[in-house]
């Protein structure tokens, strides 16, 4: 018989939530194909538009502003991290609302599982999904365009794994807002676009106005994208990047705590006001 308390119970619950999430993703392979194709598509669009605007000197204009002529890797890294962030926000952020719409939220909350375990379980599925997306997208791009630096994908991937922790924290925060305000899909779209604009997905953050850069500095993807570019395009190592690694680790501590605290607060309030059963 399965235990209902203690570490073993938590692991069992995590495993169940993880597999459930994975099955859900496997049931919709079309969505996964879109997550894989969008980074290439957006990179291709930017390249096409850039070449139209810059002509034969487009690469040198690009290099003058970014310090690299390897446009594909520069843009694909931004695209891949954006797609990862997109999946996390969409999955973790809207998962509670989805359960609410399907009418299964009450069963989930009545199960002898801690809320934190529930949210972490959802995140674990996304660790696997986003890792696969990142490794396929960046792996293919690096293998074709920059094969000599293929192994730099390992430290870049480590950077992503660290960056995922604060991102999940933002997902928890978002889950709370969605329970409170409903309308998850429009929130998701806006948040994903704001993240794409502020984190330097296709351009250096230094391009943004100074006050906007202050907001960018509070977002983990900013550090992940910039550091990945340094690792793959400027031969930097994780040791060289200790400063931003430290900031990223601090965000990895802060966001999950803040996110979970906000989620719990909204959840408690929703329990009192009956917000959970409202559509």
């Amino acid at each position, binding site marked *: 018989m399965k235990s209902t308390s203690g570490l073993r119970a938590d692991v069992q619950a995590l495993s169940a939530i993880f597999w459930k999430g994975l099955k859900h993703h496997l049931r919709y392979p079309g969505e996964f194909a879109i997550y894989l194709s969008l980074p290439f598509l957006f990179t291709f669009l930017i390249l096409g538009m*850039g070449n139209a*605007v810059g002509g034969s000197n487009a690469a040198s204009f*690009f290099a003058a502003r970014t310090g690299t002529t390897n446009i594909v890797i520069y843009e694909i890294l931004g695209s891949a991290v954006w797609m990862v962030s997109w999946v996390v926000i969409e999955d973790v952020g809207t998962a509670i609302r989805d359960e609410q719409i399907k009418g299964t939220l009450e069963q989930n909350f009545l199960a002898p599982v801690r809320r934190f375990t529930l949210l972490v379980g959802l995140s674990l599925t996304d660790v696997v999904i986003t890792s696969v997306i990142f490794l396929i997208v960046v792996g293919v791009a690096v293998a074709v365009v920059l094969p000599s630096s293929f192994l730099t994908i390992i430290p870049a991937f480590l950077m992503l794994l660290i960056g995922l922790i604060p991102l999940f924290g933002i997902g928890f925060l978002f889950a709370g807002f969605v329970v409170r305000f409903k309308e998850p899909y429009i929130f998701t779209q806006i948040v994903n676009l704001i993240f794409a604009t502020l984190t330097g997905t*296709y*351009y250096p953050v230094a391009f943004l106005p100074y006050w906007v850069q202050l907001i960018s500095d509070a977002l983990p993807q900013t550090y992940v994208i910039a550091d990945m570019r340094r690792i793959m395009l400027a031969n930097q190592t994780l040791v060289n990047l200790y400063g931003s690694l430290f900031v990223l680790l601090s965000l990895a501590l802060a966001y999950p705590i803040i996110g979970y605290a906000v989620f719990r607060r909204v959840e408690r309030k929703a329990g009192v006001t009956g917000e959970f059963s409202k559509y």
Partner: protein
Amino acid sequence: MNSPNTSYTARLFREFKASFVKDLRSYFRYPAWVVGEFISTPLWFFFFALGVTLFAPVASTANVRGLGTGITYFFFGFLFIVLFSTSVWGVGQSVRNEQESGTLEQFFLAPANRATLILGRWARIFLTDSIIIAYTTFLLYLLGGTAISVLDPTLFLLALGLYEISLIGFGLFMAGLTIRIKSYNSVGNMIFFGFMILTGALFPVTSLPTPVRYFSMLIPFTYLNDIMRHAALGTQMILPETLEYPVAVVAAVAMMIFGFVAFNRIEQDARVKGSIATS
């Protein structure tokens, strides 16, 4: 109520008006979506536009290779995207929305022309799209001081009219497709992004590889994008002017007729097979 004396045109106009008002009411019933659309659409523009400016000549705001500045060139690409999305996500999805709301049978049983009802939705989207485009243009001026101007407004408006005629035709075809294909989102995404590349919305079709360019030349939107951009920025046209104008007119009308015929055929087929209400 319609009397037997009511002229056919007056009846069609009344149906169109009713459909337009209904769609406008549905649109404003979800204010979060309205606000979201007004935030996210300009964000898409600024996000991509900033990426493209990396490729523009350094310290230059002058006309780049006859294409306008990076921002103005991209602005018209953004305009085409907003307009084209009307076909795929607006008109095309109207039938799917009714299907999901469980009102498709009422919609099809109403003593009204189906195409007129769909045109009502197109009119609502055209109105809101125009407001969003005007608002983004104003924002662009406020934030970057870039004033968008059109060299030949008459030609631009004529091409826009033809563009809308094509959009209605293509939208009707897409609406028919939603009756046939249930996984509309994935197909819609593929068609949307494919057209963005193939029709030269974001970069000239001359940048495409030669075999792909042949496909581009078969799509009416390619000529309409080209004429509108030529009218706005004075860019070089893909065909000689005397040839491209008649080609564009014929292609736009052909697209309209094709859309009506395809929609009616698919609808009749679905009635026979009983697949109208299957979701």
